[in-house]
Every structure is written in structure tokens, then in C-alpha cells.
């Protein structure tokens, strides 16, 4: 039996497989179709202090190899999340795993306020915070905080001061080098990194000569971004000791194992769940089978186990 447990900083996960923010609602919507015993954590959809309407329709477009979305972080605010969504999660899911709460704000102060509100709830099923500083779809509240290392360090430090929960920072992939951003996270007091968010993208309807998305552009996710994500995880792992939660186009165990060999401690499944909700379970089983085949006693031994001359 392969030991599947991993630790993402202080977050203990029973398997190295999580779900990615924005693709798995608040953890319970897919409950009928999910074997939670194969999951190590679920990540909730981005939440801020107050309700937020999100972007106009259309909000997405299928492309070969994935999906371009500009949902725009619609949500009901942190109070509703804590009172209703966490309640439903704990009631609907029979065998629940820790929830990683993905947070965002329109100011540094708001990030800290959301973090403080989530911490204050002291919900036993909330396992960590994931700061989204890399959403390409909302002007204030994403990229602005993730595109300047100084701003990033400051906002991470403010959130750090507001919470004792394990703190994961989700970084933007579209930067010339990830290293200054990683330093900012380290200096700010982050416990782990999430890589990668969607890659800015656009689709044009050539017959009508208009952008397909009402927001004009969006973020590309799915199979197409996987190799780009592997490279960023690899670069990040070489630059830091912080554990990494990797995401971007995981459809089968092979993709997850690649991430782990490149340096990820755990992986998250996003877009693949939409076409196949059993992806996470299959990936988990596939990682275990790979470990057996290659003589790894524990999944955590895969982290950074790439062979290089």
C-alpha cells in the first residue's frame, strides 16, 4: 500500500489530489458524482467581503484543448459563504476533506478582512486560505496585486497578519520570471504556492467580427496550458522550499505525476472535471499505481524526483 498522504505546509491532505478554485463550486455541487476518499482537499470558488455580480454573458468559450473563461468571480460574499456554503458542504458531503478557501479583494485591506473573517469562523473543515492575486478577469482584484512584487509582498504580509490558517498564494503565470514573485510570497509569510492560474486569452467570432466573450478576453485553462504549467512549477520548485499546489490541464495521472516530479507537493484538477467528474479519483488511483510500479513507498517521494544530469 502506497502512503498517499502529503503536507502542503500545515495543511494535511489524505491524497495529493485537490480540486481547483472556480471549477468545483463550494465543494458540494458535484457531491453525487465524486468519491471524496480520493481527494485531499477541495478549493472553493473565489470569495470577497461583499457580493459581486461577475461579468456579463457570454462568460466562456470552448476551444480545442480547453476553455477560455471570464466568469468574473461572481459570489455572494464571505458571510454567505461561511454561513450557507460551508453549512451545505458539511451537510451534503458524507466524507468531507479540508476546504481551501480562495479569497480575493479590491484592496489590500479587503484581502486581510476576508482572511480575518474566514479565520474568525474557525470552521473545522476550513483547512487553508488561497489568495488569488492572478485572476485575469476582474480589473481590481486580481492581476493588480500579482503583477508587482512589492505590492504582492505587502498584500501577502497583510493577510499573514490577519490569519493563522495555512496561507497559499496563487500566482499569475504571465510574468517574465516567477522568482521575484516567489520571494515576495516568502517575505510576506506565505506557507505555500499555487501554480498556475489561467493564461490571458481571447477568442474572436470572425463572422460577426466581435470578441466572443462579453469581457472581450478571459483566461485559458485545460489541456492546452499543461506544459506551460509544468515549466512554471519546475522553475518555482528550484527557486523555493515552499510547497507547491500545481494545476493546469490535469486530465490523467500522467499529468499529475509530471507536476509532482517537477516539484509539486499536490495537484488540483480544474477544467477536466467538467467533462469527466471522476478525473480526480482516477488521477489519485493512477498516482498510487505509478508509485507501486516505480518503487515509491509514499506519494510525497515524487515531489521533485525528476532525474537530471
Amino acid at each position, binding site marked *: 500500500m502506497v502512503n498517499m498522504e502529503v503536507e502542503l505546509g500545515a495543511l494535511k491532505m489524505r491524497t495529493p489530489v485537490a480540486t481547483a478554485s472556480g471549477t468545483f*463550486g463550494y465543494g458540494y455541487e458535484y457531491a*453525487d458524482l465524486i468519491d471524496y476518499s480520493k481527494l485531499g482537499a477541495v478549493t472553493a470558488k473565489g470569495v470577497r467581503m461583499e457580493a459581486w*455580480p461577475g461579468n456579463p454573458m457570454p*462568460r466562456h468559450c470552448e476551444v*480545442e484543448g480547453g476553455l477560455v473563461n471570464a466568469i468574473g468571480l461572481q459570489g455572494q460574499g464571505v458571510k454567505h459563504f461561511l454561513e450557507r456554503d460551508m453549512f451545505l458542504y458539511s451537510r451534503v458531503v458524507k466524507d468531507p476533506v479540508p476546504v481551501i478557501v480562495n479569497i480575493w479583494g479590491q484592496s489590500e485591506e479587503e484581502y486581510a478582512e476576508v482572511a480575518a473573517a474566514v479565520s474568525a469562523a474557525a470552521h473545522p473543515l476550513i483547512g487553508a486560505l488561497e489568495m488569488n492575486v492572478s485572476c485575469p478577469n476582474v480589473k481590481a482584484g486580481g492581476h493588480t496585486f500579482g503583477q508587482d512584487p512589492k505590492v504582492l509582498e505587502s498584500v501577502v504580509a497583510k493577510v499573514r497578519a490577519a490569519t493563522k490558517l495555512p496561507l497559499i498564494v496563487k500566482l499569475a503565470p504571465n510574468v517574465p520570471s516567477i522568482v521575484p514573485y516567489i520571494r515576495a510570497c516568502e517575505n510576506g509569510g506565505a506557507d505555500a504556492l499555487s501554480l498556475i492560474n489561467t493564461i490571458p486569452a481571447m477568442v474572436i467570432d470572425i463572422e460577426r467580427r466581435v470578441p466572443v466573450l462579453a469581457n472581450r478576453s478571459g483566461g485559458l485553462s485545460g489541456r492546452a496550458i499543461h506544459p506551460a504549467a509544468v515549466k512554471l512549477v519546475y522553475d518555482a520548485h528550484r527557486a523555493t522550499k515552499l510547497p507547491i499546489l500545481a494545476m493546469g490541464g490535469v486530465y490523467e495521472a500522467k499529468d499529475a505525476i509530471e507536476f509532482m516530479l517537477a516539484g509539486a507537493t499536490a495537484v488540483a484538477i480544474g477544467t477536466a472535471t*467538467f*467533462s*469527466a467528474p471522476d478525473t480526480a479519483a482516477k488521477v489519485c488511483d493512477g498516482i498510487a499505481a505509478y508509485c507501486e510500479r516505480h518503487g515509491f513507498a509514499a506519494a510525497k517521494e515524487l515531489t521533485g524526483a525528476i532525474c537530471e544530469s
Partner: protein
Amino acid sequence: MKHDEKAEVLENREFAAGYRYLVVSAPRQAAEMQPGQFVHVRVPTLERSALRRPFSVFNAGDGKVTVLYKTVGRGTEALSKVKAGEFVNMEGPLGKGFPLSCKGTAFLVGGGFGVAPLYFLARRLPKSILFVGGRTKDDLLALDRFAEIGVEARIATNDGSAGEKGFVTGPLDAAINEFRAKGEEFELFTCGPDGLLRAVTERALELKVPGWISVDRHMICGMGACFACIQKTVRGNSRCCIEGPVFKAEELVW
């Protein structure tokens, strides 16, 4: 409860140019499916990252689920090539369907493939009339199936090739006036293009009769998890796949 069944295709038959019935064996969904609910079908020959395609249920029972679909793009095109004996993954039952009771006569107002959920509904309601419109008589779907179950159809086509010439609101308004003159009760149920949905919503609100409106929006997850499928309602931005697809007329904001 939602299921994701590996469903054997029993039939995938073209019944009019560009339109097919897909009949699959999906016993768990067939047993629980309600009119107005939908399924999310994974088209087996599309690349793995392709999204599922949502379809209303045309009929369900005896372990089978039937969908009536139009070939419009690469997903439905690929689906049209799937043969009996092959399998498709199908999630369902999804969404909130129509109510299964109706005061008086159910006025079912359909356009295009919007008649699909109305057929399933007509099978469950004691008394209904179908109002259906299209550009030409070729756009009128499944009239034979409605006739088989004894549902009267009142028709309008833009070119006058079947029924009265004009829009489906013509025969609908005539029936509304006729029923009101007789003091008979009716409720409105509709599925089709947005223009039709708005016209029926307006009538329901104006006449103060219950109106049940099935809204079709592009979807990603079909489960309420992604917020892609938005329709404005009095509550704000609502998800069609879970708060709908059937909404009450007074909930909708156009």
C-alpha cells in the same frame, strides 16, 4: 440524485433533415427524470477536453432517456455519427424542471427544439394544448408524437406553409382570449428562443397566470459549480443549470 451513466445508445435516428432522436439506456436517470430537466452528454469522439453538451429530455421511462436534438455545430455533428451499440457518458437529471400540476389547461408554447421538454411534460399533465411556431413547416418538430398522445397542436409559420401565417403568439393570444371569455383556467409553459420566452413571460405577468419559462444558456459544468450559465432574475445573476432551466415568469429580468 445526479448520476453519470455510461449509457448504451439504442437509437440515433434522423426523423427530419438535421434533427434526430437519441435514445439511450440510462436506467437510474430514466427513473428519476422530471419534465424540464436536462442531461449533459459527453460526445465520445470529441477531444478529451471538450465540454459536455446539454439537452432537454424529450422522454424518459422504462430505463431509457430520449433526447431530440438539432445538428448545429461540431458537438452535435459528432453526436449524429454515434451508432447504436456505442456508449455515451450522460449526467442527469440536472436542473429544476416544470411543476407537475396545472390549474386548468396547460398552454405549451414551443419553438424549434424547445418542444422537446414540452412533450415530456404533456405526457405527465392531464390536459394540454401545444402552440408551436417556426419559419416554415419544416421547423415544426415531433407533431406526430404530440398527436399520438392526444395533444392538440395550434400552429403558426412565418411563411404560412403550415397553420396560420405569422408568429406563434397569434394562435396563443387567440386561445387566451377564448379561454378568458369562457372563464376557463390555464397556465403557460414555454421553451424556445429568447424572443418567444420574453413574449410568454410578458403575457403571464400581464394576465397574472402562472408562467413557467425554460431558459437555454451556454453551460460549462451543468451542476451549479462554475457560474457560466447566467440569466438575470430578481435575485441577481442566477445559474440556469441549477436555479433553472425552468424559472417562474415573475423571477425573470430581461
